Each structure stands twice: as C-alpha cells, then as structure tokens.
C-alpha cells in the first residue's frame, strides 16, 4: 500500500502527477495558513474576563488582496492545466501513427477488437450484434474487418507506441479506467468515443469499470498486458492463427 498515486505506466502519468503535486502544494499552503490561523485565533482570542472584541467592519485593502491572490492563482492553474488537457483530449491530439483498438463495453464485460495484419479496424454497427457469435457487431463484409480479432476481457498493447481506443457501449454507460495509465473515458451507448494513450512500462494491469453500470458493476474487470513490440506481434499472430482455426473448423 502506498499513500501516493499508483505506479506510472503511460506518458500521461508523469504530467498528470506533476499537476497533482503542483495543486497539492498550492492547496497545502492554503490549508496550513487557514488551519494554523484558525487554531491561533481560537487560542489567542478566546474569551477572557474583561476582554472586549476589536470593533471593525472590515478592511478593504485586505479583502482586495485575498480576492486577487486566489483569482490570479486560479487563472494560471486553468491555463496550465488546459494545455495538458488539449494534449490528451484535444480534437487533434491523437497521434497519426496510433495503433487502433476497439473497446466494446456491455453488462458486465469488455470486448477488445484488434486490427490484425492490416492495422485497420473494420466497421461495426450495433444492429449486427449477436451474443457469442458477434459480440461487438463487427461488419464482416468490410474488407478491413476480415482479419480483426475479438477477445473478451483482455487488453494487449505494445509498449512505447501510441494506442487509440474507440469506445462503444451496448447497453448502459460504462467507464474505461486504467489507473496506472491515468486514463479514464466513459463508454456511452449511441456514441463512439476515441481516447489515446501510450504505455511506457511492460507488465500487467487492470481495466476497471468506473461508472455504475448495474448489479455486477464491481466485477466488470479486464486484464491489461503491456508487451514489447516483438512480444506483441508474436501474440497477435498466435491469436490470428487461433481465430482462423476457429472459423475454418
């Protein structure tokens, strides 16, 4: 157990944690000033026989100062965190070479679609969804869909390469959350939402659903495997072979 943030495993983690620390310092200073001030006032100005309070209605200069300082701090904070936000979620933030993975959420499982050898995800449409046969509604008539691989509750990504995830949901709102990547995005029925990240540390992690999605919300969990590119390619080939075997048999 750590009393700090989880290990960092994506390129977003460091700047987000930096921002966390910066805000912690700003709020920490304010916190100490206010609480120490309160305790001091409570002790220094406690009721004493014969004491009379100092009669004043305020002090404009003091009030202007303690209005201006938070205002300036907040504007600076807003500007600096907006820069990071645009890098993560902005309209043109997804890198051109990002590797696409489809994520389809339903009560209470995650379905991941991998693009196969062509590196392209096929078209999906909700009308084609059939339980077990075609859980994500992949349109097999699309040439790009021919070699797509669909796997339940396992997210495999290569390390050091941007990955763009396209989130869809079949029933209710779910939320895709990998704490070590510092990435979260809701999956909303009727919408197809793109979110990208770049894993930096090989290992296994977990995807959690972080939006209440029904009775077994707590069990809606998937594993994340971050591989080196070579390992990833080998894994993908192996899965492609498995998929082929399954469809021909």
């Amino acid at each position, binding site marked *: 157990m750590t009393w700090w943030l989880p290990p960092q495993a994506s390129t977003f983690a460091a700047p987000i944690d930096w921002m966390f620390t910066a805000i912690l310092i700003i709020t920490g200073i304010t916190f100490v000033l206010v609480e120490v001030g309160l305790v001091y006032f409570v002790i220094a100005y406690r009721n004493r026989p014969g004491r009379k309070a100092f009669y004043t209605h305020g002090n404009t200069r003091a009030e202007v100062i303690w209005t201006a300082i938070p205002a300036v701090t907040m504007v600076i904070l807003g500007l600096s965190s907006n820069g990071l936000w645009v890098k993560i979620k902005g309209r043109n933030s997804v890198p051109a070479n990002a590797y696409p993975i489809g994520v389809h959420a339903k009560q209470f499982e995650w379905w991941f679609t991998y693009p196969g050898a062509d590196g392209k995800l096929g078209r999906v449409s909700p009308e084609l969804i059939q339980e077990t046969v075609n859980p994500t509604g992949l349109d097999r008539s699309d040439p790009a869909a021919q070699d797509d691989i669909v796997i339940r509750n396992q997210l495999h990504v290569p390390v050091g390469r941007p990955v763009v995830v396209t989130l869809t949901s079949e029933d209710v709102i779910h*939320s895709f959350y990998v704490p070590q990547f510092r990435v979260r995005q809701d999956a909303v029925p009727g919408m197809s939402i793109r979110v990208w990240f770049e894993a930096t540390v090989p290992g296994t992690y977990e995807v959690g659903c972080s939006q209440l999605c029904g009775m077994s919300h707590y069990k809606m*969990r998937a594993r994340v495997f971050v591989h080196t590119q070579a390992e990833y390619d080998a894994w993908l080939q192996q899965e492609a072979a498995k998929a082929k075997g399954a469809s021909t048999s």
Partner: protein
Amino acid sequence: MSTVAATAHAVHAHHDDRSFVRKYVFSTDHKIIGIQFLFLSLFSLLVGGVLAMQIRWQEGFPGQPMPGGKLLPETMASGGVLLPEYYIELVTMHGTFMVFFAIMLLLVGVYANFLIPLKLGAHDMAFPRINMASFWSAFVAGILMFASMFVPEGAARAGWTMYTPLSARHDLSGSSLGQELWSISIIFFGLSSVLGSLNYISTVINNRAPGMTWFRMPLSVWALFITAILGLLAVPVLAGAAIMLLFEQILGTHFFDPGAGGQALLWQHLFWFFGHPEVYILILPAMGMVSDLVANGSRKPIFGYHSMVFAICGIAFLGWIVWGHHMFVSGMNPTLGSTFMVSTLLIAVPSAIKVFNWMGTMWRGNIQFHTPMLNAIGFVAMFTIGGLSGIFMAATPLDMFIHDTYFIVAHLHYVLFGGSLFAIFGAIPYWYPKMFGRLMSDRWGKVHFYLTFLFYNLTFFPMHITGMAGHMRRIYDPTVYDFLKPYQPMNEFISISAFLLFATQIIFFVNFWWSLFKGEKAPLNPWHDNGLEWTLPSPAPHGNWETPPTVYRGPYEFSAPGVSEDYLPQNRKLPTDREPALAPAHGD
C-alpha cells in the same frame, strides 16, 4: 394598513383558538412548518445514516455476514451477507436521502421557513397556505421514497444521479417499481421545493419590517434568499427530467435511448444543470448561518459584510455555468471541458473570500466556545478542506484520473458533512430555544462536537488516499481488483471510524429529545444576539409580532463602542438613531 394588520394579529396571538390539527398538523404557521420539516429531515438523516453503515460494512468487510444482517429479507442479504443488488440500492438511497431529504430539507425546509420571517420582522410567510402545501408535498415525496425501499425488486438501483439508460430500463437495472417510485417522489419533491422557494423570495422582497433594508439583512437571510432563487430556477429542471424519466420507464418513450434516436447524455446535462446549483443550495444556507454564528461567537461585526453578500451572489451565479465539470470524461466535447474548468476554478475566488472573512471576523474577537460556535469553527476548518480538494478535480487532466473514485467521495463529504452538516449541528442548538423554549445541553453538545469532529476526519480523510489509489465508487467488493487489495486494511479502518461516527450521533439524538422535555428553560436572549427573533418570547406566538419591530441597524453590531453590553439589537433605538424614512411595504 400595517396598523390594522398588526392589531388583527395581536388579537389572534392572544386568543389562539385553532384546533390541534390546524395548530400542529395542517398548520400555516411558518415556525410550526419549520419544526415539521425538522422532524422529517432528522428522520431522513437517520435513514441515510443507517444505509451508510451498511455500505461501510460491505466495503470494510466484503463477503462477511453483517451483524443483524440475518434480519434482512433474502432479497437484500443472503445469510447476513449483503447482495450486490442490495448494495447498489444502498448507495442509491443513501445519496438520495442525504442530499434531498436530509441536508436540503434541513437547510432550506427548516431554516428558510423558521428564520426568514423571524429575522425580518414579518408576521409569517407571504403565502402561508402555499407554505403548508410545500411541507406536505415534501412529506408525500419522503413517504414514497421511503416506501420504495420495501417494494418487490427493491429500491432504485442507478445511483442517486440516476444516469440513463441504466435508470430508464428495468431490464438493465433489475429494479422496476422502486425505480418508478424514485421518479414520482422526485416530482413531488420538486413541487415542494418550488412552492417553498417562491414563498421565501416573496417574503424577503415584500415582508421586511420598517427599517430592514437589504443591507441590514442578516447573512443567513441573504443566503437563504439567494438559495431560494437557485431552487426556483434549478429544481424544476430536475422535476422535468424526472417526468421524462418516468415517461421512459412507464410509457416507453425514448428521450434517453440512442437506439431509437434519443441521447444518453441528455439526462446528465439536465441532471447536472440542476445538480450543480443544487450543490450550492446545499452549502449557501450553511455559509449564511455560520456567518451569523461566527459573528455572535466572536462578539465582533462580520468582517466585510458587503463582500460576503457579493460572494454569495457570485457563487450562485457561477453555480449556473459549471455543470459540465461533472461530465469531463462523459463523452462531452473536450473543448467544453476547458470552458467548464475555468468557470469552476473561478468559484474558488468567492469561496476564499468567505473563508478569509470568517477568519477576519474571529481575528481580535472575544471568542465564546458554546456548541454553536464550536460547530461553526468546525465548518470553516472542514469546508476549507472540501473547497481545496475541489480544485484537484476542477483541473480537467487530473479529473480524468480521480473522477468517480473515492477522492470524489471524500471531497463531497467534506463539503456536505464537514460543511453543511456541521453548520446544521451549530444551527440546531442555536435556534433550538426559539423553537422549543428550552436549551439543549451545552456540555453534551460539546462532547458530541469533539467526537464527531474526530471520527468524521478519521472516516473521510483516508478516502482521499484510497481515491488516489484509484478506488472506484460504488463497487460492491473492492478486493476483486488486485490493485485495491492492499488497501483493504484502510477500508476496514474507514468502516470502523464510520461506525464510531454513527454511534456518536446517538449523543445528539438523545440530547435533542431529552432537552425537548427536560432541557433548561431558555432566557429571552440566550446568545446575546442582535437578531429580531430574540426580542420575541420563546417559542414565539402565532403571528410573531403584535406590532412589527422597527430596525435601526445591521445585525452584527457586537462590541460597539459607547454601548455598555457587547451587543446591540437591531431594533434598539439609540438617541442618535433616526426613524426609517420609508417603511417597506408590509403585506400580510
């Protein structure tokens, strides 16, 4: 005209021949209605607390039979072990009861009703019958919500925020009648809130005593007035959304169903367009009453009265343009996220003004440590933490990480419990003598405050840590996740603290009920306050004043030079005071 009204009331006050039912049940007296709201909301607070204890049992000791759990029916717990669907009902109803029926009714139902006419020198609310209707529709709403926990398939199961499509489709949530009763109850609740709000607004505008100018109003009344405006404009949006949700549930409409051309996110926009002003409905009255308490307890005029008023207005205005900060990761256009982040961060400014002004009020004061003042100091200390932790989630990139985790749970409880509820624990003993003619025990009040303060922090502060670890909200069993397993001892610690926090509230409830019958008889002005309410006998008669008081000054003239006592009531005429030139209209 005002003399005629006053005479009529004088007669009325002396010969109160109303029947028991008209006097205590279907009463139009704002004070009785306030007390009715007090009992309804304290009951809701208890319900919400009992639900919270069950949540904490499951989080701290997942899979273990809950003590007393065998008493629950098989649909809720199996062999004493809570079921996942019941757990979702618990979190849903805990939020619903605490937000709507406990805190909102305690602040707005109780104190807007009780304080506005008394503090303004009015005989009653502008529309006493509408006021009665407001209570009884809240009562119906409360009964429906309470009953929904005992229907087949259980209570609503979509969280208090009722995100669609989960809340709209019974096949997905597994709850049907309970889900519909939630919507119906909220529609009644909305009606109650609108009726109350328009009454408060009308009363403040029209029924102020002669000399009670806008800037002589106590900050509690200012806050309740601004809150009423928020309520009048925001709650109908919720009621409208609840009507759409009910249509979706029982008529099969498709407002929120993307499969048939609806929009799943529409609910979130409607809900939070209400929901964020609602957050300020839940804190502004607390801030207002704390201002009264801090000035009184410090025996000093409030520091920067005008900036306090403008800060209330500023918070209320900004409260309308920040709803999107609940939706940064909802799929809303990220560019909107930038806009909402800036407006959200700006709220820190008026909030900071208020905290610094409270501290300025205490500075060089003569601080009295009675229970109300202790709780007011607790409010300032804890609201500061809640306000500061809000900055973390206002920053969009950071929200992407901490959204929907226990960090948010910690934040909202620092504002709603550390803020609103501490203010309520200050306000209840402070105005208790005015309500019931007796004082609550100050000694037990202090014991209650110190223990609550301790266990409250031990309960909610560690939630920041589990939230930073990524602990998601509303998960039935955190040990399912490998990354959360190491935090289970901390979850146990939180749960044990929460049980002790709950046990501490027994002191409050016993003190409340015991003092009702055996408490010390209250003197006329027990807190040496300047407010008009303390010039009346306790409890005050129906119609309040025989002759409306005349107001000569603001409410915070404590320790004024040249006055022998350290307070100066608003209606005491000094030789230097002039009669108010123009008496405000005094409708009745």
